């Protein structure tokens, strides 16, 4: 999981000896040892060598982040090793090259270690014939109803059928029938007939998630994936089995039959449900989000993510989203609201303004707020948000950008320490203006019933002294948020903001990894990305112009914030860059 991130800061490991092998006649150099699914160095396998040679070897059960099972037999290849004479010395060909003794038996690429001088053959007629044989075996008892299968379009069986399948089946016997639409757990459905018994799901939940929940019952062709009788497949990582299932056997109850995958647009993004910042792909079509899937990043989440984070997207599509700019409760426009706010801020005496910024905002937005804060001499903080963590991916800190709030100076090592000071300032009448971004100050705790409504996310905001009575005492309350909340009801200005899926920006995760995310869908109504209108506001208040693009803004921020020095938007790449926190 996060082992790769940890190793980034460690000194480079000693160089691994390289050995030369040939893949389909082309010589390549590969490390003698390669990391296994746990990161431990073990002898490099033939499939890793073919991968290094950019030669595709089809496979179902092999997954680089799971223990090797070797059961699908799709990656069978032929190979040879340098021939040894009776004197145990290599035998040479007349042209001086080592003579290769071809193995009479094929071997599975996923489990067979390479040796110096080995030759791997992936394109011989007999390799092709073996793949065809395996594929035929997999298909004889498989329903041939791709048009109604949810996996169609991202199915390995479909893909390899194009490469190694026959146009007609010679199978004339009756197919084996197995249970369909099996309710394995709260989020997973199983179609046992579609299952090719690669056991990826079993290995994932046992060896990665640490929940030995799945197994195989029956024998031979009747083998079926199942849970222990009476038990449910229910841990916080079950939906990863849907991702790694090469066929349509395991489907997500949330996503199944909602949308054909080829219609979906995939946008690189980051999960906002906790400080881990798992990399995700947002699948959307026509301004609607259909699913999140993990995007592989070995420095953060590997190829996995938790179910809670994965399903935490429906709020983006809620009907009651804040869509209008409100000035004293009346619908207004951005121009009016922003110029009024700017005027008020310009006239505000030092010390009369406080800012509560959310650690769910992006680095860029927090930095823009820090510019306001500096100009106004304001007091600021963010609201800590804590929940349950685990030892795999889920962090106790439910804010995605705690480190961003700290590095930009909007909050401090102990987040929330200033909230009681702000409350006291309001009570004493010193603080007359309060700017609140992305937080409902009146939400002190969440009841159990409401927790369930929030689709598996459990978060508790720590208590602070800012009450409704205090909010009522303010001269000006400016609130920007995405969903309606109690604080906004007291606001003089309500500025509708955007979910991360509706804008671009970056977060700094728990390890200090700065990761950018892209826009998947358009904002709702009049809502605008916070960095976009904050940029206008900062210009109006400070008179300093920034950049109108997120790239320029990020690069400007990187020059200004010491921790981000040297970063560029482009340089973040898809996987982010770790900074010192």
């Amino acid at each position, binding site marked *: 999981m996060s082992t790769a991130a940890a190793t980034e800061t460690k000194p480079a490991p000693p160089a691994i000896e390289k050995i030369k092998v040939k893949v389909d006649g082309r010589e390549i150099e590969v490390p003698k040892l390669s990391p296994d699914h746990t990161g431990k160095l073990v002898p490099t396998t033939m499939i890793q060598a073919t991968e290094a040679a950019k030669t595709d070897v089809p496979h179902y059960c092999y997954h680089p982040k799971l223990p090797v099972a070797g*059961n699908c037999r799709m990656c069978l290849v032929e190979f040879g090793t340098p021939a040894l004479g009776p004197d145990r010395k290599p035998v040479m060909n007349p042209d001086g090259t080592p003579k290769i003794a071809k193995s009479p038996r094929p071997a599975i690429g996923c489990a067979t270690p390479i040796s110096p001088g080995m030759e791997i053959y992936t394109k011989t007629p007999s390799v092709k014939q073996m793949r065809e044989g395996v594929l035929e075996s997999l298909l004889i008892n498989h329903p041939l109803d791709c048009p109604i299968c949810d996996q169609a379009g991202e199915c390995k069986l479909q893909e390899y059928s194009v490469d190694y399948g026959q146009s007609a089946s010679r199978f004339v016997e009756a197919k084996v029938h197995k249970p369909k639409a099996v309710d394995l757990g709260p989020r997973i459905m199983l179609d046992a007939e579609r299952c090719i018994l690669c056991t990826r799901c079993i290995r994932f939940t046992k060896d990665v998630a640490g929940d030995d929940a799945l197994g195989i019952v029956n*024998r031979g062709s009747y083998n079926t994936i199942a849970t222990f009788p009476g038990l449910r497949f229910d841990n916080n990582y079950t939906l990863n089995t849907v991702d790694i299932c090469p066929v349509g056997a395991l489907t997500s109850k949330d996503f199944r039959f909602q949308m054909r995958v080829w219609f979906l647009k995939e946008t690189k993004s980051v999960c906002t449900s906790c400080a881990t910042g798992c990399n995700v792909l947002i699948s959307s079509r026509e301004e609607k989000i259909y699913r999140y899937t993990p995007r592989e990043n070995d420095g953060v989440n590997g190829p996995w993510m938790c179910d809670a984070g994965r399903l935490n997207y429906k709020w983006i599509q809620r009907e009651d989203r804040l869509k209008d700019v409100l000035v004293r409760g009346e619908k207004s426009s951005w121009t009016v609201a922003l110029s009024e706010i700017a005027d008020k801020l310009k006239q505000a005496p030092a010390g009369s303004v406080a800012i509560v910024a959310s650690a769910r905002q992006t680095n860029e937005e927090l930095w823009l707020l820090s510019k306001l804060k500096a100009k106004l001499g304001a007091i600021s903080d963010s609201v800590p948000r804590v929940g349950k963590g685990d030892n795999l991916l889920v962090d106790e800190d439910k804010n995605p950008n705690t480190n961003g709030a700290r590095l930009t100076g909007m909050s401090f090592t102990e987040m929330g320490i200033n909230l009681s000071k702000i409350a006291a300032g309001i009570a004493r009448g010193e603080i007359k203006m309060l700017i609140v971004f992305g937080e409902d100050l009146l939400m002190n705790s969440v009841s159990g019933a409401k927790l369930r409504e929030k689709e598996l996310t459990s978060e508790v905001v720590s208590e602070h002294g800012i009450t409704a009575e205090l909010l009522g005492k303010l001269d000006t309350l400016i609130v920007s948020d995405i969903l309606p909340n109690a604080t906004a009801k007291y606001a003089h200005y309500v500025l509708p903001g955007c979910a991360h899926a509706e804008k671009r920006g970056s977060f700094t995760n728990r390890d200090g990894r700065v990761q950018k995310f892209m826009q998947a869908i358009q904002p709702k109504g009049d809502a605008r990305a916070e960095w976009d209108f904050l940029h206008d506001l900062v210009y109006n208040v400070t008179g300093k112009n920034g950049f109108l693009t997120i790239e320029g803004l990020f690069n400007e921020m990187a020059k200004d914030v010491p921790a981000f020095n040297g970063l560029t938007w482009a340089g973040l790449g898809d996987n982010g860059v770790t900074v010192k926190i």
Partner: protein
Amino acid sequence: MPQEFKLILKHLDNPGYTPDIECYLRHGGYDALKKALAIQPKDLPDGKKASPQEQIRDDVKLSGLRGRGGAGFSCGLKWSFVDRRSGKPIYLICNADESEPGTFKDRQIIHKDPHQLIEGMIISCFANDVKLAYIYIRGEMPLGAKLLNKALAEARAKNLLGKNILGSGYDLDIHVHRGAGAYICGEETGLIESLEGKRPYPRIKPPYFPAVLGLYMCPTIVNNVETLCNVKHIVTMGGAEFAKLGTPNNTGTRIVSLSGQVKRPGYYEIEVGKATIGQLINDPVFGGGLRDGHKLKAVIPGGSSAKVFKAGEKFKLKRKVDGKDVEQEVDMLDLPYDFDSLIAAGSMSGSSAIIVMDDSVDIVEALANISEFYAHESCGQCTPCREGSLWMSKTLHRLTHGEGRKSDADYLVKIADNIPGGRTICAFGEACSWPVQSFVAKFKDEFVAKGAADEERRANEKIQPKTATPVERKELATAH
């Protein structure tokens, strides 16, 4: 004249011979163990010392003993692969999951002379520094498990097992583990998984060679019952003397399970290679010939997974005559019953179970029966065997239930060809496909004729050929 040579079976069928320890001791039991424990370190010419354990291992290597379970792999070589430097405990497992159809030799030893096995195991464990050993016994042998447990208790009571065996300082205990009735548990890595309490899915090799990563990921030796009994006799006789039994590279004795349509089916111990298949079937001391009025049709020489021989089949074998290599044509019945000759003839002696079929046998039905067994017993771990074994069985079921096609013979071979030859994790792939390949190759006309007859009948009945079998496979459709 071929004769039985009773080494392992010496006493067990004698009147009055009982499986208890007192009877075993009266017949010289545990003398070999005492001899083994009394071996002193020996000085070698190169100045090193050979420990008693090394001496026994060398003797077993010298004896040329080959595994009696099925593969016929050299026992001494197998023991030499054991990783003795890992610092992990070494385990020994006795494979008593005798389940190859046609085989019934190990159960005789277990039921009638369990102490012979236990003595062989203790010596083998001593020779390999094993402190804990298991007997994995087939689930369908409850009596055998009971007898073994009783025998182990007797041995413990006499300090032949447990701490400080016979004052030698050597500790060993042996446990009996009963299988739950799966053929695949006889595959050594499947057995190990089962013993660990898991589903008996054979392990991939590499990396899980039992000699290095076996039971609980520790070095492990898995030997057949008969093989372990032989170790006792090697210690008694000395490896060199044992090697004089049988024929070169096929040393010692083997217990042959003879079944099928012979007059005297049963188990016969012979010196390996000192009797031919024909003698085993026809000689009055062995099978005593076929039933009167019947002719030989086919012989499966090594348990149901071995490739079948057709009566009258001839093989060209390389033989040494007066020190020269000569190629000789040998009739199937004149094949010496040993490891190498049968391999040279394209089959194997396997678990040394000879299944004899006379001319009353419908060869298609016979293969359907074998195939159904393998379809039922495939563990289902890897694709070619899981799907192929049932496919072949379904086809043969159709062919034996009036729904055959002329083309089914070729169809069967094409299915079978996709399974063996290293495409599967374990040798079950070969076990299920070899019978189909060999039966169809050698009796193709019968398969074609059956299919043709079905086609003709359907045409006469004006029934269109069906594309799917209408025959309900109740016996297989039931999940286990």
